């Protein structure tokens, strides 16, 4: 088919042909074409088969208002053919087709419609078994419904995100949007105008006689430096305090606007009659878009239904483009097209009172029935009214009403810095639209504190004419579609009401009306009218279903942007890598898991354990949380935060810290080293330090003690030198600290320098061996590490990783908060009564611990060993009389003891050493093991005090 001559085809570049294929047939369009326009130009009107009945479908709106235009692209499913540009070599295929689009093997579904009433799926696909829906029916139906295929091999693409700020955001670049943006920018505001379509102008780009006005608006808009025009940009939602996502291609602009002016316009609404879904039946605006934007002649002989002046203008446009008008039906009783009708009559067009009663044709419309007369045609155009684009206003809290006189939805905006102008505000005449836009801009300028001018309101010459409520009567033979996405006919909604679902939200859930890809764009108005009539209510009382973001489909890539998993590195990161460490994520940190090749993991880990038990090892503990608590009230503060007593802790001594929350649950532990009367250096677990720090600040925001807390986690690095030979190494270091047995006792802390590095040294450890933990400012860590490694050469000092550390601590029965504790663990359940002060008047959790103690001990953490072949895993259940009473929290092979060792919660009555308890393994086997004390190795803790 040849295209119409210029100036038709404002969006296409005839000098640049584009070749593509649809259903493996070659087509040619032009640069600027969308898939649907290029196909229409090539005579291909059918684009898809419908969702349920597999009826042939084509374009209706040319504005993305129906799912019928969804097609499959190689790397994108569900592309809207009426919005997606054609590109060279693009392979387009139809979706929801069994076989081919022309010969769909499932087309027989259309004949079965009466067996598939509304609610059919819910009632039918229940059995035979409980899981049948998930296992059998859902996959089958999903395949039948065929909504595109995802290409898992799609190439990587970059998606970007940016923040954007403006005084005024105008949504929509039609007449109202342009006029509002110009007015606001002229008033001195920083303005952004976002338009979905590739060009500005909205309806002015295709509506009859709009060229001069569009030209003038664009000229004014483009010369304003403080007006940023963004085309191809969808404003996909409204969020609190005027925060709106603007999506332009693969970039998301998170936009904060002081003021928002919604000029989202209207969307033309279809008429309801039998076979209103046939390809060739389209909206007046779709016919205009095809002609003006793409120079595509929508047909050769048209039947026209016009209930508003726009419809008459479309008829004039069609005539001018060489389309014969077989008949124009105006359904309005006593209605007249005024001067426009005279023009048409003068050109020989027959105008009758009536409406489209039925259409027919095999896969394209061939006849339309008007007032009982069958009119042959290959195009049936409908212009009966509009719905305002209610989605964004409703996201922002606008209330939707319905004006029975003008037969249109109306919007009432919330009390917020949001305005509306033009079609979305119910205005149609050009002068009224411009005035509403200028007025909205002035209101925004006034709230922004800018100088303003008065805008006189202009009565709308067309408001009462634009919409006509065509009576909706179910055709006895059906196929009169209200919702084309979901294949819902008038009777389906009437039946939903008869079933008792009279509220719109229930009608929606029962029938699925409005739940398809177009989200009610073409169905909400007819649904409201149909349900209103069926329930004898006003349309305003029925309304529309809740509109929520997103407005249009958005890709996961746009939401995700670049992926940035957090990564923190200790100062010794490169040193560990140089030593061959297997670095693994621990929260945001990367830590050595063990040192050496991965293939040898088990042997290397055991060697690391043996090195600590028999010689000496060193562990990087830099990721441990570090907090400085300082000030005259520091001791009092720690007394309130932790369960032990700190006020009388001597300077130069370390003390265990156990933290509970107000419910008496253990939430963290560490060590407090008192450096001075008013300074404690406190450690916290790696994963919890951020929370411990903010909790400390929160408590003191209430207590107002004279204390300051600082998180020095990254500022200090530390390594623990541990094993029977540890002292030999630290004594070999150049230092002013006395590391001797008598000079530096267990749980002592010392400050000094080591190898010229300022150091905080503590005799603490997690392994149960003689241990010295050296902490220093992180920029000195490498120097200190090198000195320690140098001193360790003759003693076989071996760095060890996290896995060996976990084994060493478990051999000593030391708990890991979060691993061996859960949201209910009390100190008593851990056997930590010794760590809970009985004399302090208060600490966080004290009262709850006491109350829980009075209730008895429901469970207790104990040690278990497993020598046999069946070994339970972590989280395996502990049973008592075959009822679960606890679970295994840690279990590992001990290379020191040559057995599996575990910590587990057992029933409170079974906690005594020697009591046999039963654990259910993953394989179902039940194993019995006697309760052991926490410490499997060196139960008297002699080694750490060597």
């Amino acid at each position, binding site marked *: 088919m040849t295209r119409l001559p210029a100036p038709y085809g404002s969006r296409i570049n005839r000098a640049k042909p584009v070749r593509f294929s649809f259903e493996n047939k070659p087509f040619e369009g032009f640069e600027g074409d969308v898939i649907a326009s290029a196909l229409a130009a090539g005579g291909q009107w059918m684009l898809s088969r419908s969702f349920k009945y597999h009826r042939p479908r084509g374009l209706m709106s040319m504005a993305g208002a129906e799912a019928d235009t969804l097609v499959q692209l190689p790397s994108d499913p569900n592309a809207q053919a009426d919005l997606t540009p054609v590109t060279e070599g693009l392979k387009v295929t139809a979706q929801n087709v069994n076989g081919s689009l022309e010969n769909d093997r499932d087309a027989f579904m259309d004949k079965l419609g009466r067996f598939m009433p509304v609610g059919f799926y819910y009632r039918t696909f229940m059995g035979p078994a409980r899981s049948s829906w998930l296992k059998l029916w859902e996959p089958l139906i999903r395949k039948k419904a065929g909504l595109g295929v995802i290409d898992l091999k799609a190439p990587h693409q*970059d998606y*970007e*995100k*940016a*923040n*954007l*700020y403006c005084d005024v955001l105008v949504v929509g670049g039609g007449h109202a949007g342009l006029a509002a943006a110009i007015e606001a920018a002229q008033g001195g505001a920083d303005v952004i105008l976002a338009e979905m379509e590739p060009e500005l102008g909205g309806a002015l780009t295709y509506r009859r006689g709009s060229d001069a006005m569009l030209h003038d608006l664009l000229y004014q808009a483009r010369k304003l430096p403080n007006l940023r025009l963004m085309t191809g940009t969808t404003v996909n939602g409204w969020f609190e305090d005027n925060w709106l996502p603007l999506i332009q291609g693969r970039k998301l602009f*998170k936009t*904060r606007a002081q003021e928002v002016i919604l000029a989202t316009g209207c969307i033309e609404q279809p008429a309801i009659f039998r076979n209103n879904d046939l390809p060739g039946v389209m909206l007046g605006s779709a016919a205009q878009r095809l002609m003006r934007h793409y120079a595509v002649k929508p047909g050769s002989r048209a039947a026209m239904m016009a209930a508003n002046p726009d419809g008459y203008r479309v008829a004039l446009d069609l005539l001018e483009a060489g389309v014969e008008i077989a008949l124009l039906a105006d359904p309005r009783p006593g209605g007249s097209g005024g001067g426009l009708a005279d023009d048409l009559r003068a050109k020989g067009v027959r105008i009758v009172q009536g409406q489209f009663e039925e259409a027919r044709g095999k896969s394209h419309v061939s006849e339309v029935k008007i007032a009982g007369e069958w009119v042959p045609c290959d195009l049936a155009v409908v212009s009966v009214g509009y719905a305002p684009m209610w989605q964004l206003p409703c996201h922002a809290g606008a209330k939707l009403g319905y004006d029975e006189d003008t037969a249109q939805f109306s919007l009432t905006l919330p009390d917020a810095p949001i305005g509306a102008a033009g079609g979305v505000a119910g205005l149609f005449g050009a002068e009224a639209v411009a005035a509403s836009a200028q007025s909205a801009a002035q209101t925004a300028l006034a709230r922004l504190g800018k100088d303003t001018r008065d805008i006189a309101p202009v009565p709308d010459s067309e408001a009462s004419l634009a919409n006509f409520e065509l009576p909706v009567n179910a055709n006895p033979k059906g196929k009169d579609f209200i919702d084309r996405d979901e294949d819902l006919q008038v009777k389906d909604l009437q039946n939903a009401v008869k079933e008792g679902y009279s509220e719109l939200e229930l009608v929606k859930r029962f029938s699925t009306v409005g739940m398809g890809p177009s989200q009610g764009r073409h169905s909400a108005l007819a649904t409201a009218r149909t349900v209103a009539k069926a329930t004898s209510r006003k349309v305003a009382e029925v309304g529309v279903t809740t509109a929520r973001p997103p407005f249009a489909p958005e890709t996961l890539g746009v939401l995700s942007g*670049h992926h*940035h998993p*957090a*990564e*923190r*590195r*200790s*100062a*010794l*990161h*490169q*040193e560990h890598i140089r030593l061959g460490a297997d670095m693994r994520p621990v929260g*945001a*940190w990367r830590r050595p898991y063990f040192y050496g090749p991965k293939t040898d993991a088990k042997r290397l880990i055991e060697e690391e354990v043996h090195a600590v038990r028999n010689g000496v090892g060193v562990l990087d503990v830099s990721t441990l949380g570090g907090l*400085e608590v*300082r*000030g005259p009230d520091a001791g009092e503060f720690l007394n309130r935060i932790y369960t032990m007593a700190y006020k009388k802790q001597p300077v130069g001594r370390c003390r265990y810290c156990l933290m509970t929350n107000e419910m008496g649950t253990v939430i963290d532990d560490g060590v407090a080293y008192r450096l001075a009367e*008013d300074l404690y250096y406190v450690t916290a677990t790696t994963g919890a330090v951020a929370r411990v720090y903010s909790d400390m600040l929160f408590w003191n925001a209430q207590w107002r003690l*004279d204390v*300051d807390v*600082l*998180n*020095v*986690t*990254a*500022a*200090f690095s530390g390594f623990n030198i541990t094993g029977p030979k540890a002292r030999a190494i630290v004594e070999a270091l150049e230092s002013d600290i006395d590391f001797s047995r008598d000079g530096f006792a267990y749980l002592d802390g010392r400050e000094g320098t080591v190898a*010229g*590095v300022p150091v905080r040294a503590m005799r603490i450890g997690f392994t149960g061996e003689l241990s010295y933990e050296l902490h220093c*400012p*992180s*920029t*000195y*860590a*490498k*120097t200190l590490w090198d000195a320690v490694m140098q001193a360790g050469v003759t003693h076989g000092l071996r760095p060890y990783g996290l896995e060996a550390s976990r084994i060493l601590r478990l051999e000593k029965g030391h708990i890991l908060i979060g691993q061996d504790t859960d949201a209910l663990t009390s100190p008593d359940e851990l056997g930590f009564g010794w760590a809970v002060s009985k004399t302090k008047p208060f600490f966080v959790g004290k009262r709850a611990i006491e109350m829980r103690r009075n209730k008895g001990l429901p469970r207790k953490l104990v040690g278990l060993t497993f020598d046999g072949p069946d070994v339970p895993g972590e989280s395996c259940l502990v049973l008592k009389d075959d009822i679960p009473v606890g679970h295994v929290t840690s279990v590992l092979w001990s290379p020191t003891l040559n057995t599996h060792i575990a910590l587990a919660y057992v029933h409170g009555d079974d906690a005594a050493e020697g009591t046999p308890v039963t654990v259910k393994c993953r394989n179902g086997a039940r194993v019995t093991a006697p309760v052991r004390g926490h410490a499997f190795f060196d139960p008297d803790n002699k080694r750490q005090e060597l």
Partner: protein
Amino acid sequence: MRLYPLDPQGAAEGTPLITGPVSLRDDSRTPRFGLKGRGTVSFLQAQGYEVPEVNRIANGLLRLGREEAVVLNHPEDLRTRWDAAAAPKGYYSWREETWAMMHLSGPHLFDLMAKICPVNLANGAFAQGEIAQTRVGYVEAITWRDDRGGPGFSVLFDIAATAFFANAVATAAGEFERETA
């Protein structure tokens, strides 16, 4: 003998710092003396510093809270003077150890800042001498306008996240690299 993350053998060794549409420079060796807690402001005033309002800078002194400040490029003896002073004098806050310090500049500076920081740092919206404590490059950070020949921003953030930050900035700037290419 002190080693910062981007130094050879430092934790972020080998992490490239971008140049071009946006340039990232490591200033982590800049001396910075931080105090926090009761007495901070009175000590600094006693040393002759003008202490500005919270979240403002005056003469290299960043006021970060009612009783929190950092002095950049401080005289070497400031620490000694602090050690010798009588309490209340604030508490030492290890800012040369807790924070990395970096500087951003380049022709696409403002486009980049709009991508990596939620606060509007554009000319006219964010003045010289203001401080924003916010997120930059997905980490908690302190940033301020720091022009050196052309517009620039300095950023203080978690020193352990040095490599992460530099990589995040490079990824965000990739868009402008591709534009210029």
